[in-house]
């Protein structure tokens, strides 16, 4: 815990945690335990999906995002709004152009829509699919990538080694500005407006590459509030051109696969649905697909825990957005040709973390597996959570790993008390005889 091997954006406000155990059961990687009345998040297991933030009735979990003030550290500032950000505003009331004017007022000189990069990534994916292993599992959702790293290492080889739209947006926008304005890339700050904690982690501790060109990750809720304040100051709206539907639609479930030519594609949203898909799909069914979109949130990124407005309303707004906006004229094929395919790919391997491994030594791991099996039989199997573990089985695992004891189970403890009571009675009886 102390050496912090992993960066995490999902964090606990300890004084607000009541130790209620709601979160331990919804955590998809069983990363949380309640100990001494407080939640503890395991840094090895947490994938920063944000499920616990959604569940916590006491707002004791929060997302670390960068302070908006940090943009001042850069001479030239680029906002990278996620497609889901574009879905937060009712076009009848506040048009997206007005929102972008507000972003200008907040301090961003340039706005590069991540949707625009997404439209390019769509074409990159088409090209990548020509030679890649199939099915290709999308790498756009960092929580899903980390789920596969930790719980499904056997699916790692299918994960697309393609830069997600957020990173592509940072790369291209910095390149455009340094070329156009002659500003060195180091003086340009690119700031992603995020709907979720997973993207923060993806920037602070990226997988399959050393660093991200995104300089800061800002909370969509915070930016939303700032935009709402600033729009009041806007008298005349400056107009922008926007990404087309193929990119914008990435913010919702089935958006990523919409423009892909293949019909052998499937989209899954919701981290627990992704788990059940990967756990239950058989090889034949799996091989039937060319492309798998998998997103941790329902219904896609608009359902992220930092998205301020209702996710289903946002979904509809995003689908209708392209009717309201003027489209930019970009040719993804030309852009890909200009930069080369390598520009859009990550350079390193994904390294599995396999959190289920019980011991480095296989013999010891086997012993522990058998001990867990035997111990699990002793518990009632009702997964009440009173011990602070998500399931009776998880308690058995914790015991075998020396992180808990049998008497953390209140049912076992009650039996023990009964036994001790009997012994006390016997002692008393003995005394009476005397």
């Amino acid at each position: 815990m102390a050496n912090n091997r992993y960066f995490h954006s999902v964090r606990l406000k300890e004084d607000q945690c009541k130790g209620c155990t709601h979160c331990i059961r919804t955590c998809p990687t069983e990363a949380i335990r309640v100990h001494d009345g407080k939640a503890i998040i395991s840094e090895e297991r947490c994938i920063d999906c944000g499920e616990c933030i959604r569940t916590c009735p006491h707002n004791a979990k929060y997302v670390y995002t960068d302070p908006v003030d940090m943009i001042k550290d850069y001479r030239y500032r680029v906002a990278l709004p996620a497609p889901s950000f574009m879905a937060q505003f009712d076009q009848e009331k506040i048009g997206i152009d007005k929102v972008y004017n507000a972003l200008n007022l907040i301090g961003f000189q340039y706005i590069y829509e991540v949707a625009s990069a997404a439209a390019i990534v769509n074409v990159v994916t088409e090209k990548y699919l020509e030679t890649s292993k199939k099915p290709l599992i999308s790498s756009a959702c960092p929580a899903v990538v980390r789920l596969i790293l930790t719980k499904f290492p056997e699916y790692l080889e299918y994960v697309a080694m393609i830069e997600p739209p957020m990173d592509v947006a940072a790369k291209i926008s910095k390149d455009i500005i340094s070329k156009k304005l002659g500003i060195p890339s180091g003086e340009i700050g690119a700031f992603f407006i995020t709907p979720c904690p997973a993207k923060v982690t993806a920037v602070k501790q990226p997988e399959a590459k050393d660093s991200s060109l995104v300089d800061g990750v800002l909370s969509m809720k915070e930016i939303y509030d700032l935009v709402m304040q600033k729009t009041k100051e806007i008298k005349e709206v400056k107009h922008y051109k926007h990404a087309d539907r193929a990119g914008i639609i990435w913010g919702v479930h089935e958006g990523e696969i919409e423009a892909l030519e293949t019909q052998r594609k499937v989209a899954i949203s919701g981290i627990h649905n992704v788990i059940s898909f990967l756990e239950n799909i058989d090889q034949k069914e799996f091989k039937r697909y060319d492309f798998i979109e998998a997103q941790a949130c329902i219904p896609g990124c608009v359902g992220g825990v930092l998205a301020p407005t209702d996710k289903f309303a946002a979904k509809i707004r995003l689908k209708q957005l392209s009717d309201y906006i003027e489209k930019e004229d970009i040719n993804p094929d030309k852009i890909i040709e200009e930069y080369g395919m390598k520009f859009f790919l990550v350079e390193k391997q994904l390294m599995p973390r396999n959190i289920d491994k019980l011991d480095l030594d296989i013999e010891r791991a086997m012993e522990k597996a058998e001990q867990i099996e035997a111990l699990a039989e002793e518990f009632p199997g009702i997964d009440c959570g009173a011990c602070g573990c998500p399931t009776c089985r998880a308690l058995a695992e914790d015991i075998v790993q020396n992180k808990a004891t049998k008497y953390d189970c209140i049912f076992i403890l009650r039996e023990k008390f009964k036994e001790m009571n009997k012994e006390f009675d016997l002692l008393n009886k003995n005394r009476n005889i005397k």
Partner: protein
Amino acid sequence: MEINRKYNIEGGNFADAGYASSDIRKVIKQLGLSPAIIKKIAIAVYEAEINVVAHAYRGVMSVTIDRDKCQVIVDDEGPGIPDIDEAMKEGFSTASEKVREMGFGAGMGLPNIRQNADDLEIDSKVDEGTRLKITIFFNQTRAV
């Protein structure tokens, strides 16, 4: 040290098929085996399980894991395989129309098992049943 697991498999019960293989997958992940080995075992065990569901009346799958290998023995009561060589050919299947409609019985079961197993023994008596013995070694250099 050895880990032993036993699963009963019910012929025709496609809805619950996959339980044994998914449980085995959980067990082997605890041992920290490589993703490639996990995949080989998962596929071989799944195909063996589906074989029983699709073709036999009932069966028992016994899995033994030690530090070097995973051994799976599947004993089923069923029609048996009249011509094993034929059954090993890709695309050969005796599955009923009903089974095929459900997306099973494409004749890839045994070939898939052979592809992923390091050793495969098949014993079958027509009208009695079939015994499959699948061995997968953890040390990949021993794999064929």
